[in-house]
Structure formats: structure tokens, C-alpha cells
């Protein structure tokens, strides 16, 4: 392993050799027992060889590298709490029953078995409400941490070669997380989730050519259909989680293969990793973070009410709860539906209905743009080199400006998704609010992008001249000079990675 190669010439811990033998002196008995079991395993797997490399693996240290970890730990919490909930939940939206649990206002009401079991978990299973609420909060934090992690990766250019693959896998994880969040809160068959499902159905059938078939196949006929909740359940608890686990496995394997990126400074170069060793420092920090994330979610689940389905009531086709708010990560899609003017297209007797333009097109553009970004950026920069040292956001003002603009765009849509709440809060008319958001949707991204751009330039100016260029890993795709580090390339490639404000591609 390269790890040991690097630590031996004096850069590693001073007591490198003494730590290797110390445990044997300290706890001879325990050491022998562990040794026997260890030898049994090792002689069948050769684990010690690999394991030593893992122990010495170096992880760079920066708070923003924890965002992805928070997402991972929220996912673990989702699995743990989700398994518990499946033991009580009944995904049957067609069988009706008369509610007779301990929530007074709902007693005697005809409800579906799904809604009934959601209420049972909330009021009659000891600890059930805590687990349910932790699960819901964990889902919100999961998607939130993914979005922040994605922003970190975007603004620091961590998606550049060789990490394009992990960028694509990460975007897929983001989509899967959103899909599973929506599927999850649609299961409870309450008024709010029924309304969400209905809108989802309408957006689905608005897709040209395949839309009606998709709607019919997923819902088992017209909305509401008898089957959709029974079908969403295995999708929510089995299919998507398995896909997430598969994608996570790829994501983390590739991460280990690449070794983590690091910020410039402290001797960080493109051919090394500067940070802390896995054992024990990183293990303890990661473990601590897991328990802190779990603890924070437990507190939220205990004291912060979330998705009180008993207040929404069971789903009935002819009712709708006004001012109903979807989970936060669906808000921007809801906002797009609200801001869209009443247009639709009719060509040769065919119709492209309004929800397609608002519900499908923006999502397709945002996710399509996300997936394609590493290649879009490369077209502009012509930068094919490997990068392991991160950009600071100010280093690439035009990328930062675009990122800020996209965040502003989706942010305005998200707020527009709550415009009825804002209307009540600020005493506007719905008409005024919608027009305000329509203007803001296009003005704010431009303004905020421009401000971000100027800010980057200003920060760069205060930094003074850029630090010395880093040593690049030779680019085998273009120069083919495998294994040799041509001194003539060093300054050129290193210097070319930094973009100043006069970059021609800033449009």
C-alpha cells in the first residue's frame, strides 16, 4: 500500500514503530485472544494486509467534508427507524375501517387501513410517534445534507477529473432521495399526501405520448386508483433503498479509490493527501458525528411535531386542505406549477398540457444540467487535467456565479410554493404575490449571480497574487507520458488550473 510508503520516510507519526508493538505489552491476554481470532480470519481472507493500509489512510480535514457524512448518517437513521415502522404500518388504502384508537377527534370516522395504522403508530404504539417523527426529520435532513454536499462539491470544483463518475452517482443519489421522500410521505393516505399524489398523477399524465400510460400503469387506472399506495410501499421500503445502497457503495468505493480532495495550503498538492489518519482520529470523529446527527434527529423527533396526519384527516377526493405545504424539497416543483401562466400547446389535435411545462420541464433542465455540468464546464475551460486540490469558490468566479444563480432560481420557486402562506402573512393579494415571484424568478438569479461574481473578484484582489502552482498528476489521456513527471509541464498545467476574473467564459 502506498500509505505505508508515504508514512515511513519521516512524515508519519514519530512513534510509528512503537504503536505497532505497544498493545502486545499492555494487554497480553486480550492481544493473544484477538490475535487467534484475527489469525483465523486473516488466514482465510488476508485481511491484515488490506487492513493496515486502511488504518493509515489519510482523510483531509475540513468542516464542509462532513456534509456528505451527515447525509450518510441520516440514511442510516432512516434505515433503522424505517425498519421499526414497517413492523406496524399497513399499506392498504382500499380496506376501510372505523377508527377507534385513542385519538378522540377521529373516533368513529371511516378511514383506510393505511391511515388507521399511521394513527395507531402515532397514538397507540409506545414510542411509535417518536420513531415516526425521527424518520420524517431524518428524511428532511437527508435531502438537505445531500443538497449542501452537492453545493460544496460544485462550488469547489470537486467534480472535475477524475471525479465525474462520482458526480453522476451523487446526482442519482439526490434524485433517489427526493423520489423516496415523496413516496414515503404519500403512503399515509391523509388529505395532504393524497393531494400531493393527485398533483403528481396530473404531472405524470401530462407527459406527451407516454404520460397516460405511465399514469395508468403506476396508479392501476385513473387517480386515485386502488393500487398506488400498495405499490409505493415496496418501492419506498425496498426498491429505492436498495438502489440507494448500491449507489452509495459505488460512491464510497470510488471515493476511497480516488482519495479525498483537499483545499489548497498546508502542503496540499495534486499528488498527495494531507489530513488525519483513519485510525484512530478519523474513526472517532466520524463515529462522534454519527451519534451527534442521530441525537439531534432524536431531539427533533421528540419535541418538534412533523407531518401531523391526524390534523389533516383521511384522504377524501372532494376535500382539499388549503395552505397545504409539501416537504421542503418538493417546494420548488410546487412553486413552478403555481407561477406558470395558463398556457398550453395544441398542435394538430394533440395537447401538451400546462403541468408538463411547469412540472416536468424545469426539473428536467435542473437535473439534466446537474448531470452534464462536468462536461459543460470542460467545454468552456478546456481543462482535461486531473485535479485533487480544490478550488475555493472565489477562484472560479463564473462558476460560482452560475451556481448562485441556479440556487436563487430554485429558491424563488421554493418560496413561490408557499405563496399562499406568504399572502396571509404579508396581507398581499394572490395576484400580487404571483406576479412578484414571476418577476423575481428571472431577476434574482441574474442579480445574485452578478453580485457573487463581483464578490469573488473582490476577494481575489484582497488575497493578492495566487500561491505557487501545484504539482499536477500527468495527464495520460492527452500527453501519454505515463509515470514520468515532465518538469516542463509542471508550471504550465498548475498555473492553468486557476481562473481569474478575466476568464472569457464568464457569460
Amino acid at each position, binding site marked *: 500500500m502506498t500509505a505505508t510508503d508515504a*508514512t515511513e520516510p519521516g512524515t508519519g507519526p514519530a*512513534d510509528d514503530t*512503537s504503536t505497532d508493538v*505497544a498493545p502486545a*505489552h*499492555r494487554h497480553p491476554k486480550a492481544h493473544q485472544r484477538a490475535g487467534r481470532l484475527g489469525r483465523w480470519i486473516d488466514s482465510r481472507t488476508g485481511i491484515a494486509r488490506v487492513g493496515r493500509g486502511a488504518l493509515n*489512510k*489519510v482523510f483531509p480535514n475540513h468542516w464542509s467534508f462532513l456534509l456528505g457524512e451527515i447525509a450518510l448518517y441520516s440514511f442510516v437513521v432512516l434505515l433503522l427507524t424505517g425498519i421499526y415502522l414497517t413492523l406496524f404500518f399497513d399499506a392498504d388504502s382500499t380496506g376501510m375501517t372505523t377508527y377507534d384508537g385513542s385519538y378522540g377527534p377521529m373516533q368513529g370516522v371511516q378511514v383506510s387501513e393505511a391511515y388507521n395504522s399511521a394513527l395507531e403508530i402515532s397514538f397507540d404504539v409506545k*414510542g411509535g*410517534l417518536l420513531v415516526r*417523527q425521527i424518520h420524517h426529520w431524518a428524511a428532511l435532513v437527508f435531502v438537505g445534507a445531500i443538497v449542501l454536499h452537492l453545493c460544496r462539491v460544485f462550488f469547489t470544483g470537486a467534480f472535475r477529473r477524475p471525479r465525474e463518475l462520482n458526480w453522476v452517482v451523487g446526482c442519482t443519489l439526490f434524485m433517489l432521495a427526493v423520489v423516496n421522500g415523496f413516496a414515503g410521505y404519500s403512503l399515509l393516505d391523509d388529505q395532504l399526501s393524497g*393531494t400531493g399524489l393527485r*398533483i403528481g*398523477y*396530473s404531472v405524470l399524465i401530462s407527459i406527451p*405520448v407516454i404520460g*397516460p*400510460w405511465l399514469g*395508468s*400503469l403506476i396508479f392501476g387506472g*385513473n*387517480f386515485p386508483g386502488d393500487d398506488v399506495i400498495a405499490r409505493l410501499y415496496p418501492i419506498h421500503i425496498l426498491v429505492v433503498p436498495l438502489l440507494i445502497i448500491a449507489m452509495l457503495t459505488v460512491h464510497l468505493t470510488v471515493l476511497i479509490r*480516488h482519495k479525498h480532495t483537499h483545499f489548497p495550503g498546508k*502542503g496540499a498538492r*495534486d499528488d*498527495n*493527501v*494531507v*489530513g*488525519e489518519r483513519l485510525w484512530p*482520529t478519523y474513526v*472517532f470523529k466520524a463515529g*462522534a458525528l*454519527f*451519534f*451527534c*446527527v442521530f*441525537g439531534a434527529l*432524536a431531539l427533533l423527533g*421528540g*419535541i418538534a411535531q412533523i407531518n401531523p396526519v391526524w390534523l389533516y384527516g383521511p384522504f377524501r*377526493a*372532494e376535500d*382539499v*386542505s388549503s395552505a397545504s405545504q409539501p416537504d421542503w424539497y418538493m417546494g420548488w416543483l410546487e412553486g413552478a406549477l*403555481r407561477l*406558470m*401562466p*395558463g398556457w*398550453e400547446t*395544441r398542435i394538430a*389535435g*394533440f*395537447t401538451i*398540457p*400546462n*403541468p408538463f411545462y411547469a412540472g416536468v420541464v424545469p426539473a428536467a433542465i435542473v437535473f439534466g444540467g446537474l448531470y452534464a455540468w462536468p462536461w459543460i464546464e470542460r467545454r468552456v475551460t478546456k481543462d482535461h487535467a*486531473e485535479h485533487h486540490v480544490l478550488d475555493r469558490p472565489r477562484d472560479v468566479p463564473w462558476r460560482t456565479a452560475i451556481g448562485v444563480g441556479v440556487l436563487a432560481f430554485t429558491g424563488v420557486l421554493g418560496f413561490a410554493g408557499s405563496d399562499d402562506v406568504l399572502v396571509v402573512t404579508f396581507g398581499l393579494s*394572490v*395576484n400580487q404575490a404571483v406576479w412578484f415571484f414571476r418577476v423575481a424568478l428571472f431577476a434574482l438569479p441574474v442579480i445574485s449571480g452578478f453580485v457573487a461574481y463581483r464578490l469573488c473578484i473582490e476577494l481575489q484582489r484582497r488575497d493578492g497574487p495566487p500561491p505557487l502552482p501545484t504539482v499536477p498528476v500527468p495527464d495520460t489521456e492527452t500527453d501519454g507520458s505515463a509515470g514520468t513527471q515532465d518538469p516542463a509541464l509542471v508550471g504550465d498545467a498548475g498555473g492553468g488550473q486557476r481562473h481569474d476574473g478575466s476568464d472569457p467564459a464568464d457569460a
Partner: protein
Amino acid sequence: MPDEQPQRRPGGGETFPAVAFALAIVAVIGFVAVYFGSADTQALGIFAFVCLMGIGVGMATWAKRFLSPAEPEVEDRGRLASTEEEIAAFHADFDAGEYQLERRSLLGKLLVGAVAATGLGALVPFLSLGPNPKSSFKETPWSPGARVVDEQGNPVAATSINTDGILTVFPEGQVGDEFAQTLLIGVRSEAFVPASGRESWTVDGVAAFSKVCTHAGCPVGLYQAAQGLLLCPCHQSTFDINNAAEPIFGPAAVPLPQLPLSVDADGNLVADGSLSAPPGPGFWNQNRQ
């Protein structure tokens, strides 16, 4: 044991992490006690929080006091790509195997074709998931002579709807049906302008429109009688009831379908035909026969 001293850095104390871990154990006891007692959600949550945070904070402070290296570690990143020789060797081995297959290239193509066809064929059973949407999407739930009933299934007399009043109704036997839900509205006769050909569709100042929003299907239930506007709570589409329920604001692009009404011998409302268009949100071939 001098060999374990270098790991410790001066000034560190064990007290804080020890207290945190101990607190975690105490919190578990509290959690269990609450579970067997009141099972109060907030108390359970707070004990779970103290327990998990105790472990987490304890680990973090322990790591900080004893484990952080003074100097950052440096590891060689190694090379990612294979060398030219490795790639060449791979090609050589691959070609050696491929050579044996080459002369049977037709077989190879057939194999790929067979696997692909099998994969596509395996998708066909998924069509069992739902009916062909062609028929079901265009059904209109009302038929001529269908009795109008309210949410309890009782017939509705035309006189029971006052001016400015509204009532959600269904065709008899379809109470609660998503696409059949219809709104009776007591319109103001001086403001209401029936669309041409629909002059006889109202009875005693009662008009009937589909309650399913043409945008994304929400029930349009907020009636502003003074302006004759019907509002959808989902995305604020606004329909002008006095002008054939044309959309005047929001994302809806087509009017709410209207139901022609008449009365039976008992003075109760019945449908005098089907809806003027299929109700609900649009789809690409909605106007094709």
C-alpha cells in the same frame, strides 16, 4: 509503560468525555423508565437525545484531547490510471480470447439480439399494472338522466340551492368518486351569461360545473360569490363561473366542463346529458377521437 506516553498530549483531561459517557448510560435508564411509564414522546426524545449526544460529544472530545495529531499526516495519492504497458497487456489478453470468437461473429450478434429481445419481452408483463388509458380517460362519469345526489347520497331539490350557495354532488351510486364530483352553484341571474347552446342547462338559477380542476385535478371549492369566481386552492387557478367557467388567472388553461341539469317529477335535479368535456387534468391526446 513509557511507550504509551507519546500518544498523550499535555493539558488534556478525561473528565469531560467520562461525564458525557456516564450521562449517556443514565439517559438510557431514563429512556427505559419513561417507556414503561407514561411513554411520553417528548421525554423519550429528550432522553434519546442525551444518550446519543453523550456518546457523540464524548467521542469528539476524547478525539480532540488525546488523538489529534499535532502535525497533519501526508499520504501519497498514487497514480490512478493504468500504465501504457498494463493497458497493452490487457488488450493482448482480450484479443487472444476474442480471436477464438471472431469467425463466429454472426453467432455473437444473434446472442446479443436474443438477450436484448428477452429483456424487452420481460417488460411486457408490466402492462398488467393498469388498463389501457385510452378508454378510461375519456369516460365522462355523468349520463343523461343520472340522479344528482349529495355527499350523503340524498337527492337534491333544485330549490335547496340558494343564490350564492354551493353544494358538492355526485351521480347516484358514485359518491366520493374523484372525477365525478360536481359543484352546484346558485348563480346570480343578472350576472350569469350562459355559453351559446347552454341556455337551458341551468335550473332555477342553479348551474353545475365539474369540481375537478382542469390544471392538476384538485377540487375547486372556494367560491367568491360577489365576483362569481371559483378558486382552486392548489395553484390558485381562478374560473369565471358567469362566463362559462373560463380560467382567468393561474395555471389552468381550459374551462371547467359544465353539466346540463333538469328536474325529475319529484323536483329533484338530474343530469340532462353528460359533461361538456371529460373532467380533470389534460393529457396529450385528450382531443383525439
